[in-house]
């Protein structure tokens, strides 16, 4: 066998079309549309630039040391993680539960329920934010009115005004809008779980809760991995809801990294600094994704 053949060169020569359009083009597109912006952002993060004139000043790691000393970045970072924790729990649990309930046909009109739950995913977060501003409004918001009429008035909080809970309010709203996503993934995934395994558990006397958690969920690890990844990206790039609902208020306690990027780049004209925060988001997302890949995905696609 010739060397060129061993290297697959013959194959490439015979399949030039596939090689060009199947491999080269996607690679170029990826580099152009994904790689370049990322590299440019990282490049910018080493400069001081107001975004308006042409003068970029190279300042080395200054932006990064500034970031280290910026209490807003720290607040934002903590908030991104709070956001992540909330969205890892609430929409994922809710999405999975709804998917299970739909698959097990425990509710009437499953197709309708599915559509309704998925609908917010298709809504712009701007609209979602405006809607929840009304619902959570302290004067006549539907939530407080509902709590009041259920005799749960003691649960009423300043959903946006109280700096201890405002970020969780935002994260919950985000979770509300996001629930359809894990639901649709799990719904599809549950369709692929062999029905017999669920039946077998039922025969042994397992109830829905146990079947959902002990039999179906462990078989859905690939789906869970994807859902967790999506949730990580979703919460790391959180921005819209903050911009619409609080603008970081009260006193910066609801800011997130994405919002800091926006503030610094566009309001404070510190484009280089904004790029440095973007880079932080990038590194965090990539790091967390790698963690998920190595832990959750391990063996997820075996047999």
């Amino acid at each position, binding site marked *: 066998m010739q060397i060129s053949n061993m290297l697959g060169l013959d194959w490439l020569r015979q399949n030039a079309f596939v090689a060009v359009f199947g491999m080269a083009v996607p690679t170029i597109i990826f580099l152009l549309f994904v790689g370049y912006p990322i590299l440019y952002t990282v490049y910018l993060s080493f400069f001081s630039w107001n975004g308006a004139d042409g003068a970029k000043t190279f300042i080395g790691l200054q932006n990064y040391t500034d970031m280290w000393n910026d209490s807003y970045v720290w607040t934002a970072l903590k908030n991104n993680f709070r956001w992540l924790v909330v969205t890892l729990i609430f929409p994922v649990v809710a999405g999975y539960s709804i998917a299970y309930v739909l698959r097990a046909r425990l509710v009437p009109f499953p197709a309708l329920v599915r559509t309704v739950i998925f609908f917010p995913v298709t809504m712009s977060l701007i609209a979602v934010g405006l809607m929840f501003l009304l619902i959570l409004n302290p004067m006549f918001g539907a939530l407080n009115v509902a709590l009041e009429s259920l005799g749960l008035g003691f649960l009423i909080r300043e959903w946006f005004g109280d700096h201890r809970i405002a970020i969780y309010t935002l994260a919950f709203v985000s979770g509300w809008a996001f629930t359809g996503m894990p639901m649709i993934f799990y719904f599809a995934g549950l369709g692929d779980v062999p029905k*017999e395994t669920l*039946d*077998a*558990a039922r*025969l*042994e*006397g397992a109830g829905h809760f146990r079947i959902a958690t002990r039999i179906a969920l*462990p078989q859905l690890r690939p789906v869970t991995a994807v859902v967790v990844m999506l949730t990580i990206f979703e919460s790391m790039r959180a921005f819209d809801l903050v911009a619409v609902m609080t603008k970081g208020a009260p006193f910066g306690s609801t800011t997130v990294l994405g919002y800091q990027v926006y503030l610094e780049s566009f309001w404070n004209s510190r484009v280089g600094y904004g790029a440095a925060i973007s880079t932080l988001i990038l590194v965090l997302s990539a790091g967390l994704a790698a963690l998920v890949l190595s832990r959750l995905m391990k063996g997820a696609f075996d*047999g």
Partner: protein
Amino acid sequence: MADVILENIEKTYGGHTVLPNLNLTIEDGEFVVLVGPSGCGKSTTLQLVAGLDTVTSGRILIGGRDVTYAPPKDRDISMVFQSYALFPHMTVEQNIAFGPKLRGEPKGKIAQTVREIAAMLQIDGYLDRLPKALSGGQRQRVALARSLVRHPGVFLMDEPLSNLDAKLRIEARSLLARMHRDLGITTIYVTHDQSEAMTMGARIVVMKDGRIEQADPPLTVYNHPKTRFVAGFIGSPAMNFFDLVATPDGLGDDHGRVRLDRMGTARGKVTVGLRPEHIRLLDKLPGAESRNVVSMTVDVVQRLGNETLLDVVSGPFRAIVRADALAQAEPGQVRQFEFDMNAAHLFSTDDGQRIEAA
């Protein structure tokens, strides 16, 4: 230990009737095989007995108790699925112990039962493995172990052997037979394979389109099929059928290709059924007085080693003939075949019901 009674069971799926009206009584300790072509409603019947699905109407009694609407766990049954339905994320031991743990049995007792059953089924060497690390036969035995561990009153098996290769299947058949002999648990066994049904069942229930065609011991079903469908379904190669007209002179077709002795008093359109072994390839031309001899063209010759199967045709008639291993026959030859009318079955061509010749 329990008997199973199905009374006027009807099952429809959104307007599509799968079981119109099913009645079946299974004795305590009996091994019954539900057999029939794919889609005839065997699995549905089993699902109804298991409680994984509910009847549209009718009653199900297990051990004298009405369990029509009882949840599966309260029916004293266990089930083996075609796909085994092992929990892929649990070890063999966890799979077997899943039910007992759920029912809150004491740990020590669970461990002991699991060990005993695993030993009996010779899977005690793999208790720590995940199902994906087992062979098909081992998985099948794990599935058996998991359903045995609860000592059910009724054992339900839905095509438990069809995912095994031929050799393992033979082994598993005798394992199941032994198990039934030793434990005596009432068993409802579903298969679409008639030879499996023949070898395993104390009684065979042949189903077609949601109806029971015949429920009898294997040899009765084989020798006295109640309908043309049963006759054709049971036995391999399948029985040969000839649509003929019965007159006082005998049985024959319009073109004189077939002339047979008359059977009983039936008149008009009838179907004669003859198993392949009851049609004999004649070596030499028969004498003028010979009866029930039909001339047919050999189409295909299948030499199986221990015997030879001949596909023969004559006009609209087609038959398979079982001949000796060394039978002299070549495709294209026109040969004479003798029909053993003592072994022939007679059915009404119109409704397929058996006509007793006596």
